[in-house]
């Protein structure tokens, strides 16, 4: 059975398109490397940047290993608290990826469900959902995320801030992105619901919910997959932006955005590496995921094939 699946995957058009697109291969490799590095950060990183006992303020602001004042212990130098940059980046991308994936998943579930309901029910339900979507679209996503983050901070007691900030951030980024999914899925659902296989299902007496789950959902997921990939890059950048603005992840468990912010204040004193290396990591991650999304969109679109 697995052999069968493998050979089908190998012969599929998607795989063919993948193996004939250098961009897709390179970006997949880069994305995979960063993901693996993040996933196995405790194993591959030379230091544990969260372990306060190993930090030494005397090690602060050491430049990368290849410059004159470099230290052989710290490949990419250290930040203002003496944390090893390489380790901080690996652990940081862990948080960035976690927030990105979780918030994309959150938007996807909310957006796809609302889109399915909206497209299938039509009429008033559709109008209400889509007008809410329109209102939300008139604000920039980052503003909505900031707003939610601000409200959450105001409502939550102070001692919960740090422990809950991760979840608040996921919720804020997630809720700011559902509209795209809902719109796409709504359109596709409206096309699918008029197809005759849906009528055949209605004919045997199936309930709308079952029809949506069994028949329509699998047929509208294609474009959703593409949006999700591209959205992942956006979500990672949004998280970095929020953290850079200081409303995201607390500095004790830095994400890539937080690292860039920390380094920002040292840029003019010549300590460039604190900002630049996390920045490069962020660009590589977002770019490769984005390129993969682009490729997937083209590969799944029969008109561009």
């Amino acid at each position, binding site marked *: 059975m697995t052999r069968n699946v493998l050979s089908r995957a190998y012969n599929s058009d998607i795989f063919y398109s993948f193996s004939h697109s250098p961009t897709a291969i390179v970006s997949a490799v880069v994305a995979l490397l960063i993901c693996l590095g993040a996933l196995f950060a405790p194993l591959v990183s030379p230091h544990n940047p969260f372990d306060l006992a190993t930090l030494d303020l005397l090690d602060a602001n050491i430049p990368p290993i290849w410059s004159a004042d470099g230290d052989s212990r710290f490949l990419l130098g250290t930040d203002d608290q003496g944390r090893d940059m390489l380790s901080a980046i690996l652990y940081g991308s862990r948080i960035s990826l976690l927030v990105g994936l979780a918030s994309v998943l959150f938007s996807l579930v909310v957006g796809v469900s609302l889109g399915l309901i909206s497209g299938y029910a039509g009429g008033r339900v559709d109008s209400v959902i889509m007008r809410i979507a329109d209102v939300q679209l008139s604000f920039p996503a980052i503003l909505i995320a900031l707003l939610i983050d601000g409200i959450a901070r105001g409502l939550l007691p102070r001692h919960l801030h740090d422990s809950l900030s991760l979840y608040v951030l996921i919720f804020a980024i997630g809720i700011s992105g559902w509209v795209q999914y809902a719109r796409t899925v709504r359109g596709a659902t409206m096309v699918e619901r008029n*197809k005759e*296989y849906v*009528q*055949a299902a209605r*004919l*045997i*007496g*199936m309930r709308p919910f079952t029809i949506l789950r069994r*028949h329509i959902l*699998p047929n509208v997921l294609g474009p959703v997959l593409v949006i999700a990939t591209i959205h992942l890059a956006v979500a990672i950048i949004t998280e970095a932006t929020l953290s850079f603005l200081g409303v995201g992840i607390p500095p004790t468990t830095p994400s890539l955005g937080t690292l860039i912010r920390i380094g920002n204040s040292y840029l003019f004193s010549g300590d460039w590496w604190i900002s630049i290396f996390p920045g490069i990591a962020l660009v590589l991650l977002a770019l490769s995921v984005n390129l993969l999304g682009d490729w997937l969109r083209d590969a799944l679109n029969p008109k561009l094939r």
Partner: protein
Amino acid sequence: MALLDIENLHIEFSSRHGNVVAIQDVSLSLEKGEILGVVGESGAGKSTIGNAVIGLLEPPGKMTRGTVLLNGQRIDQLPPHAFREVRGRRIGMIFQDPLTSLDPLQTVGDQLIESMQVHLRIGQHQARKRAVELLTSVGIEQPELRLDQYPHQFSGGMRQRVVIALALCCEPEVIIADEPTTALDVSIQAQILDLLRALCKEKQVGMIIITHDMGVIAEITDRVAVLYRGKLVEEGPTRQVLGSPEHLYTKSLISAVPRSDIKLRRFPMVTYIEGIQENVRKDNLATATRWMGQQRNFGGKSDKPLVQVSDLGMRFVLRNSFLKKNRITLDAVKGVSFSIKEGEVFGLVGESGSGKSTIARLIAGLYQTSYGSVHFNNVNVTQLDDKKMLNSFRRQIQMVFQDPFSSLNPRMRILDIVAEPIRFHKLANTEALTRQIVSGLLDYVGLSDQALARFPHEFSGGQRQRICIARALATRPRFLICDEPTSALDVSIQAQILNLLKDLQESLGLTILFISHDLPVIRQMCDRVGVMRHGELLEVAETETLFSDPRHDYTKHLLSLMPGLDFLSREGLDLEDAAAQQAM
């Protein structure tokens, strides 16, 4: 020297799975004022020939051999800019869908004038004058006024007339018409064909008509070329080829054409068919031992009405508004009453927009009725709210849809598609039994067990329609609604599916509501027929009576539009009525 000479045309499509030969050594020639029909089933390569002649072969298609000569000049190797001079100027084109072959953002006049200015290099004023003449010659009234209208202001038939005017505007030597009437209703088809023929003869233009429709071929072509899988199997004068075909494929193709003049008991075996063999099931249909035949307390013809439709109406809201008076509504079905007897095949015929499909969906319960009632087995099903009753009603009515490509969920395996009704209604206790039933159903409609694990896209249109029928039979229905079940299919496949439906109806005693726009098909299938127009039922009669002695004027009109197929070969036909054969 002929007007257009196609010699040894050879076209290949290359893909990563290897080269596919679409056209293999086809030679055709066309004289002035002659209409050549190119006929074949889907995938035969008809349109590919047309596209190759006008230099619009889409990559990866490639002409690997052969020449195309227009008036002795070789045109297939012209560079793109020179080919543009030929295309439109010397070769005109008419496409299938008039809706998409006109630019919706330009007025009809602008499109005609632009084309003339580019090709004939004449002034604005002169071009406009000519455009008026052209519209008059294709039978459009008030051409001055119509010139400044947009395509959406024209009806389908009128639009196709405009497309013809566009093809004629630069006085081409050759016109290539690719399925020019397929998207049109019968009554408009007849007008357009008359127009094309008259224009061809009058202006001495050579025309190639590409079509799958034997009726069109019989109606207007002088000569016909029959294509089968990229090969030219037979060519000659139309009457000769259709009347006494020589090649086996042509014979089987002609025998599969539904006739308007005679009723067949069954379509003869169509020998030249895609992969699957039609199994001769007539004698081994042991339905009593199969899933389909079990637990049936009905069957056989009786005069008791099974379905009774009284004063049925359906109103669609086209534009909703808060105030009732501002709403725009459309009465798709206006107070229709008829009844269908147990065990008969009842036909509904009418042109597009006549409300036949709406009636089918109202009976099936897919639409809510606006007024009137549907009684099934003496129960009013429009007001059923008891869930148990509703489910048992649903099990007894099933539907076969028109489009075999959208009626199967592309993400589900055939096993799951056919088993869905069985699982939903919990008709089988175990998964093994379900599987056995499904495999029996597939076998019954002529598919093997290998189909179970496959996905719909791996099947052809005809095979998909078989799967749809298997699914419809899965609940052991008593009443089957077929909504244009064959209009998306090729002639030979249509013959197979109609045979299958006939066999099922006979062996299972099914009652069928058969909806079609195609009168010959109706004649082959139905016991009684209702004729519909604009949501009203005009006439209900026994099929044979309707064809021999129509009452309503509209019915007479429809019958007069049927292409005359009486000279078609009758070799090997299985006639219903031996007397009819003797009368020949």
